[in-house]
Each structure stands twice: as structure tokens, then as C-alpha cells.
């Protein structure tokens, strides 16, 4: 093979499937269909016409939804230009059905007769659903692009890149009309186009170098608004909308300039700096407050569009040095400034769920933050492969319009790398971090104009609250012999929110794994891995009303997840120089529990918490078994027989009960309509035969 390297190959096969392959889980990001398929093809033409030009081409899953093409043309060391085409499917659910039809861009309608019938008799929904259209709610991304890199010398290079991505399809989307009277889940039409351009220059030598670049990203949404009919009301009235309208993701654009440079100050010291600035803009026209023509006294909009302007400036400075042969020092400074110059708009009133005026004022806030961090670490090399590292980092986070205006976090860490034997290495890490908000002003960020009751005293948002984080972990790797290797890891993370009386109180994660591989013979290897993860969190809340706000209505939720992952397999390569075999199995098995407890006394007057019941256990099981035999028919031709078995099971109380009508479960949804989207279990057998020709 080495004497006569191939310049290309193509693998073409025939595939058959058995079982339920319609599940969106099976098809989530791929397209496995029965019949003829091209698994891959490649062409690698070096030294075209005895010159230094080359041309390469690769493809995978050709002419499937997840197809990939990549072509490169270039001249060794001088330039290289690449063209790329990629398709990425994304299936959400295959069990949906809808009464809606998209009659024009972003407008979902239901026939008038159906609406009239449902308005007069909502209980006739099951009969109306007989006419629902089954829908595979899915998206497809199609990306095409190209890039060129020129290297006129070893030190200089210039690059240019362009891509265009189209994202089309539907996504399950929840809407509501008239408060929660008409919860209407619809297939949101998605028609996005994103263009990206990048250009850059780089210079680099052993003394240092720099990079400078410009990038622009333009996002466009063909559906700026979603309009949908209310199947249970055909006529607008105050407090009862016949249609709804909302703003989908608006067109936006972002541009950035970036610079990075590095300079070797001496043979042992290097200074690295990067500065990047991103400008994000959005100025799509606002929709009116409501589409409901019966709502009176709707105020005028304070502006026709947002004129949203954000700038993010990231500055990083890193100095690294090896002043002694055994000592490495690193210090870094980072400033990330997220500047929001978007105008703050005041709305004297607004229309809630296209139903009626909320009679509440609202004010948009230009949230912004600045994060500065400074850190240092020192590593002392004990022996080759053995070292001890001590690190410290300080982070100062200033926020605008959030409950915590300023918080500081100190993190200290120690890492010990041991390599006492050539065949044994171990890394142990311990980290402790303390985050302290300087002041906590509750409810500042959500309702600056009021209109909602204050939070319970002691409630803190977990991403801003005081937090003590402790992390520890170890990774051990043993190469017992040339044939046997073993590794194991164990990591523990614990977060405590000691000053939070409500909200998230604590989080604990345990992650452990073991991995063994054994080379039975030179061409036979075995492997096995096992991982166990356990995550726990506790949160506390209170059910209350304006007139009944006591700690007797406190409740707590304990969330537990346990995930086990197992995989094992064997690989035989070039048996008698003819046969290669791969067999492997993997299982990911997850269980989740959400237990809910009352903390008060139900016998006391005013007790409200009647729904704190444990949720049913959730779980997923994903099995995958693959066996493949490759047989070399000749120097250039080989055949492959592959069998795959996949099985996915899920227990999910939130999804598996879904149907378009949910009134059996919640009587409050008698005038609501859902897609009924589930992600059903599946079991699929895939058998394929393919020929791989190398030329």
C-alpha cells in the first residue's frame, strides 16, 4: 500500500432497515435510508501535471440530507482554496399533527368552518382533529462556502472566507392567547439565511507574530412575524382574540475586528495580547402591540424600531515565562466589556397575549456587564512528567440593570501531576472558589416599573448569588504493558449558595469513569469503558398570594440525575491480511427524579401547597450495537458487511402523554391545541453491504 498509495476511493453500498425508523430520535441529525447509498468518496491528486499543484475532494453520505462535500485546490506552501457543502438535518418530532396551514409567509390559518364549530362547541375538538395534518417537525441546514489561504512566504499568510447557510423547516413553538385560555402550539416556520465573511492576515516568526482580521455575519429571517388563528374564537373581542401575532427572531448583523499578537521577549518569556471588538446591530421594525382590533386605547409605540446596538470588546494579555528550567510562570489579564447602547424604551402600557391591555408600564433595559479577571499560575517541574501547579484567579464582574451590580470571585487551585513509573501517571486537582456579590438588590432587573410583587426575602438568582464552589478530581492512566492500558477518573463539584434562603440552594456533581484497552494480538484489540455520573440540586420556593405570604407555604424540590454509560468492543484488523472486524456495543442509561416536598403544616389556615407531589421518574436508554466485517477482495477492492442495532427507550412524563388535545390531563386546556409532539422510542436493525474501491 505504501509503495503504491491510492489517489482515491469510493464506498458504495446497499442498505436495508427493519423496525420503527420513523422516530425523530433515530433521524435527529442524520439520514439513513434503505437502498443504494454512497458512504464516502475521495480523490487526492498530488503534483498535478508534475507541478506543485494539488487537488483533493472528499464526500460523505452523498445525496442524503446529511451529505458533506469538501474540495481543495492549492499549491504546496503557497495557497490553498477550499469549497465546502454541508447538509445537517434536525428532526424534533415525528408524531405531530396540526390543524394549521401556512397560507402566506408566517401566517398560519385554520379553515373558518372548523373555527366556527370549535367556537360553538370546544368539546368537538377530538372530531376536528380527525382532519389534522400529520407533520414531521424538522429543520434542514444547508451550508455552502469557500475559503482561501495564501502563504507568499513561510512567515506571511492571508485568508479569505465566505459562507452562506440556509435553515429551513419547522420547529415546535408554544404560543398563547387570552392569557392561558388558548394555549396553541404551532409549527413555527423557519426560513433563515446567514452569510459570513472573514478576511485576515498573519505574520509569524520565531520571535513572534500577529494576526489581524475582520468578520461579518448577516442573519436574515424571511418570517419576521408569526400570525396564527385562534381555533376557538373566530371574532375579535376585548379580552378574546381571534388571532395572535408575535415577533420572530429579527434580522441582525454583527461585525468584528480582531487583533492578536505575540512577542518572545526572551528565549524563555513570551507576551501574548489579543483585542477583539464585536458590533451587534438590530433595527427591525416593531410590530404593533396587538393584532386584536377590538382592544381599545392601545398607546402609541415609543419608537418604530429598537435601534439595538451592542459592542463587545475583549482584551487579553498573557505573559508566560520559564525563568528556571524547572519553573513555569503564567500571568493573564482579561477584560470583557459588553457595552449595550440600545435605547431604553418606556411603554406606558402593553397588550397581554393579544387579549387586553395589561395596565402595567414596562421599560426595556439595556443589560450590560464588564468582566475583568486577573490570574497567575506557577508550575514546578519535579521530574520529567511530574509537576506541581499552583494557581489563583480573581474575577470582578460589574453588571448594569441586574440585581447584583458588582461581584467578586476568588479561585485558588492546586494540581499535582505524578509519573512515578513510566507506565503510571496521575493528575490530581483541587479548586476552591468563592463568589461574593457586593450588594444584592432584589427584583431590580425584572420589573423596573413595578407591577409585580417583590421577591420573597432571601431569594437570590443563582447566577448572581453568593457561591462557594469546591472541585476536586483525579485522572489516572496506567500502561501496564505494551498491550494493556487502563485509565480512571473521578471528579466532584459542589456549589453551595449559603446566603440564598430560596431559589437554588446547592448543586453537587459526581463524575467517574474507567477505561481499559487490551491488545490481545498485534491485530486484535479489546476495549471497555464505564462512566457513572450523578447530579443533585436542591431548590426552595414559596407558593403565595398578595394576601397570603407566609413561610408555611414554602416547598422544596430535590432533583436527582444518575447516568451510566457503558461501552465495549473488539477490533480485528488485517486478519490474514484479508479481514477486518469491528464489534462494539454502547449503552447510555439515564434516570431522573424530581421530588417535591412541602415544608409547612397543611393543617394551618391558609395552607396553599397542594401540588407538591413527586414527579414520575424520567429515563432514557440508548443502546447501540454494531458489527462490521471488511473483507479485502483484491489490492484495490474490499467489501463490507455491517449490522447495526439501535434501541432507544424513554420514560418522559412531560412528552409521552402529548396529544393535540390535553384536556384529559389538565381541564384548563379545554380550549387549547397542541402539536402532540413526542420523541418516541424506537428499535431499528440496519444491514448494509458495501464495496470500497481504491484507485
Amino acid at each position, binding site marked *: 500500500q505504501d509503495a503504491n498509495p491510492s489517489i482515491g476511493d469510493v464506498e458504495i453500498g446497499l442498505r436495508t432497515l427493519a423496525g420503527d425508523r420513523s422516530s425523530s430520535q433515530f433521524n435527529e441529525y442524520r439520514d439513513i435510508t434503505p437502498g443504494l447509498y454512497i458512504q464516502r468518496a475521495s480523490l487526492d491528486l498530488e503534483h498535478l501535471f508534475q507541478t506543485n499543484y494539488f487537488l483533493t475532494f472528499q464526500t460523505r453520505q452523498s445525496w442524503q440530507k446529511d451529505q458533506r462535500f469538501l474540495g481543495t485546490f492549492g499549491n504546496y506552501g503557497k495557497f490553498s482554496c477550499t469549497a465546502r457543502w454541508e447538509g445537517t438535518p434536525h428532526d424534533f418530532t415525528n408524531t405531530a399533527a396540526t390543524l394549521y396551514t401556512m397560507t402566506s409567509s408566517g401566517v398560519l390559518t385554520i379553515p373558518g368552518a372548523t373555527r366556527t364549530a370549535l367556537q360553538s362547541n370546544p368539546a368537538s375538538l377530538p372530531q376536528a382533529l380527525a382532519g389534522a395534518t400529520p407533520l414531521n417537525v424538522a429543520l434542514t441546514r444547508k451550508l455552502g462556502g469557500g475559503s482561501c489561504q495564501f502563504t507568499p512566504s513561510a512567515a506571511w499568510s492571508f485568508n479569505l472566507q465566505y459562507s452562506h447557510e440556509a435553515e429551513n423547516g419547522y420547529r415546535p413553538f*408554544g404560543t398563547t392567547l387570552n392569557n392561558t385560555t388558548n394555549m396553541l402550539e404551532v409549527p413555527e416556520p423557519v426560513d433563515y439565511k446567514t452569510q459570513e465573511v472573514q478576511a485576515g492576515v498573519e505574520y509569524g516568526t520565531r520571535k513572534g507574530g500577529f494576526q489581524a482580521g475582520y468578520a461579518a455575519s448577516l442573519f436574515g429571517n424571511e418570517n419576521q412575524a408569526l400570525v396564527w388563528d385562534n381555533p376557538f374564537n373566530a371574532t375579535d373581542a376585548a379580552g378574546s382574540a381571534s388571532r395572535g401575532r408575535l*415577533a420572530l427572531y429579527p434580522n441582525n448583523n454583527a461585525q468584528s475586528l480582531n487583533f492578536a499578537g505575540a512577542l518572545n521577549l526572551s528565549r524563555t518569556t513570551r507576551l501574548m495580547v489579543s483585542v477583539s471588538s464585536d458590533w451587534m446591530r438590530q433595527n427591525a421594525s416593531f410590530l404593533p402591540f396587538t393584532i386584536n382590533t377590538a382592544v381599545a386605547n392601545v398607546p402609541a409605540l415609543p419608537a418604530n424600531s429598537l435601534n439595538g446596538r451592542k459592542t463587545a470588546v475583549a482584551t487579553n494579555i498573557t505573559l508566560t515565562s520559564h525563568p528556571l528550567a524547572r519553573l513555569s510562570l503564567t500571568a493573564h489579564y482579561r477584560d470583557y466589556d459588553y457595552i449595550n447602547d440600545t435605547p431604553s424604551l418606556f411603554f406606558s402600557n402593553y397588550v397581554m397575549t393579544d387579549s387586553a391591555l395589561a395596565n402595567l408600564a414596562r421599560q426595556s433595559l439595556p*443589560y450590560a456587564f464588564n468582566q475583568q479577571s486577573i490570574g497567575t499560575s506557577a508550575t514546578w517541574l519535579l521530574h520529567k512528567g511530574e509537576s506541581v501547579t499552583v494557581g489563583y484567579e480573581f474575577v470582578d464582574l460589574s453588571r448594569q440593570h441586574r440585581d447584583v451590580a458588582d461581584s467578586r470571585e476568588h479561585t485558588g487551585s492546586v494540581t499535582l501531576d505524578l509519573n512515578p513509573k513510566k507506565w503510571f501517571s496521575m493528575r490530581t486537582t483541587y479548586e476552591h472558589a468563592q463568589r461574593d456579590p457586593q450588594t444584592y438588590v432584589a427584583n431590580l432587573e425584572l420589573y423596573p416599573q413595578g407591577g409585580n410583587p417583590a421577591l420573597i426575602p432571601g431569594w437570590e438568582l443563582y447566577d448572581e448569588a453568593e457561591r462557594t464552589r469546591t472541585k476536586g478530581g483525579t485522572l489516572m492512566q496506567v500502561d501496564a504493558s505494551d498491550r494493556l492500558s487502563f485509565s480512571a477518573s473521578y471528579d466532584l463539584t459542589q456549589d453551595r449558595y449559603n446566603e440564598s434562603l430560596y431559589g437554588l440552594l446547592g448543586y453537587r456533581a459526581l463524575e467517574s469513569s474507567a477505561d481499559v484497552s487490551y491488545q490481545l494480538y498485534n491485530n486484535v484489540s479489546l476495549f471497555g469503558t464505564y462512566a457513572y455520573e450523578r447530579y443533585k440540586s436542591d431548590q426552595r420556593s414559596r407558593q403565595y398570594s398578595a394576601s397570603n405570604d407566609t413561610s408555611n407555604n414554602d416547598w422544596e424540590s430535590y432533583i436527582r440525575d444518575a447516568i451510566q454509560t457503558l461501552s465495549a468492543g473488539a477490533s480485528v484488523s488485517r486478519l490474514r491480511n484479508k479481514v477486518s472486524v469491528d464489534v462494539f456495543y454502547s449503552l447510555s442509561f439515564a434516570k*431522573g427524579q424530581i421530588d417535591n416536598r412541602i415544608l409547612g403544616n397543611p393543617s394551618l389556615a391558609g395552607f396553599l401547597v397542594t401540588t407538591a407531589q413527586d414527579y414520575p421518574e424520567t429515563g432514557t436508554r440508548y443502546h447501540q450495537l454494531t458489527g462490521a466485517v471488511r473483507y479485502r477482495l483484491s489490492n484495490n477492492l474490499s467489501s463490507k458487511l455491517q449490522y*447495526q442495532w439501535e434501541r432507544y427507550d424513554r420514560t418522559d412524563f412531560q412528552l409521552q402523554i402529548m396529544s393535540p388535545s390535553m384536556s384529559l390531563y389538565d381541564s384548563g386546556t379545554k380550549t387549547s391545541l397542541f402539536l402532540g409532539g413526542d420523541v418516541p422510542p424506537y428499535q431499528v436493525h440496519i444491514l448494509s453491504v458495501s464495496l470500497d474501491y481504491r484507485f
Partner: protein
Amino acid sequence: DVSQYVGSKACDECHHQGYRKFALTKMAKVFFDAPRNELEQQGCEACHGPAQEHVEAARAHDRARASGIAYQGPPSGQFILRFGKDSPLSARDQNDRCLQCHEKGQRLFWQGSAHESRGLACVTCHQVHQDPPAAVAAARFQQPLTGNTLFPKRTQMEVCFDCHPMRKAQLLRSSHMPVREGLMTCASCHNVHGSPNPKLLIAATVNDTCYKCHPERRGPFLWEHPPVMENCLNCHEAHGSSRAQLLRINPPRLCQECHTSTGHPGTPQLATSRYVFNRGCTNCHSQIHGSNSPSGSRFQR
């Protein structure tokens, strides 16, 4: 000293297999056919150092063996730079050879980076002229199309999994990004060669990284959800989850970590309630990533 260099052809005499394999790489094509500077002109010796003494020792050894006498001189191996686990050189010294040419591009921030400071050598993850991995009959993780296949494992992801085994477990969960399907790799989000950004991200923040594929969520929006704007990971577990949409915790509990109020936010809610089934809170508050509607302050429009 130029006289200490013997040229790559001399290497081919004894290290034929390695030479042939290296000759197939783009790097060799530049070195042998289109060198751009003196270093590249040195071919094999650009990385392995001047080989004059190595060759002389090897030839002396061969002559002694041909004459049937025991070779008494120093082993030829001590006169050449070798790479890998058995090399007498430290990882830093080994990497120094690679960085002669590669300390730019993605490696500009290699020095002081997480992997550099943990003593990883370039050859821990890359191979230049070893055998490529054995013929693949089947793969657990598909490798995306790439021009770079100089990995000691079948896929780039498997290289990372050696030291990050939990990431493999997370990617096998039911809710995952299309990594095992070969549509993404670890390098889609991380620059493993060093980055000035946290967690070796390719962009300045977690959100900027996510916006590479989800630019619609970038905004700015009229109504922004502050934890969303600050960090996608406040709600999502990027490497895989057993919850839908890569969520950390099922709604409504995810939302109730931060939200309480009179009415439904402060109520535990039954499992069969419309506030819980399907997507929980986002059954109504679907514009949770940001709304541009004047009536969208509660992310329902």
C-alpha cells in the same frame, strides 16, 4: 553548522518506511518540493536536528557488524532528536521543534495554555509518519470531512476522549449536539492549541461561540433575558443532556431556580399540568431567548 546536515535522502536509506509515510504528507511535499525557507529545506533534519553524527555512528555500527566485531561506539540514537513518550526530551523541548514553524495560526496562544502547561507534547495528539489507524470497519464517532487526519486515533474526538472521558459519556446521551454523527467535532467550539478565551473557546465567550451556529439568538432584542444574554450555559449543558434541548434541568424547575411570583411561578404544579407537560414554561413563554415585540416583556410575543 551546515556541514552537520546530511539531507533527507540519507534518512531514506535506513528509515525507509517512515520516510515513505512522511513523504505522503502535505508537510513533506512543502519540505521536499516547495520549501520556503532554510529550515524547510532541511527536510527531516528540520525536526530531528542535524544528522551527521547520527549517520556516522550508524554507519560505524553497520561496518562493525559487517566485520563481525562488536560495535563499541555510542548509539546512533543519542545524536538525533526523537519524539514521543520514549524521547529523552521534555515535552517542551519536543514541542519547540514543531513550533519552529507552527507557532502561529491556531498555535499563537499555545504557550501558557491549558494543554501546554499540563505537559502535553504535540505528538501526544498528532503523528507525522506513523501508520494511520487500522482500516475502519465501523466507527462509533464519525469523523467530519477534514484535510487534517494526522491523529493517532481514528477520529479527532477520540484523541480528546483519552483525557476527557466524561465528554464521551455526555455525547452519548439522548440530547446531544451532532458530534457522534460527524457533523461537529470538539474543535468546532474549542481551540485545543490555546486560546485567550475561557475554556479554550474559539470565540470570546460561551455565547459568542454558540452564535456561530445560532446567530438568530444574538439580538440585540427589545426584551432581553439577562441570564440568557450572559451565558447560554446558565440553562444548557452543551456537551449532552438527558433532557430535551440540552437543558440542565427540566422546566418548570429550571425556570423556578430563579423565578417565583404569585400565581403559577411559585406553585410546584402537578406533573399533568399545562405548566409542566411538553416544554413546561416555554409552552407560553416561547421567546425566552429574547423578544422584539412591544408586547413581549414576558417573552410570550
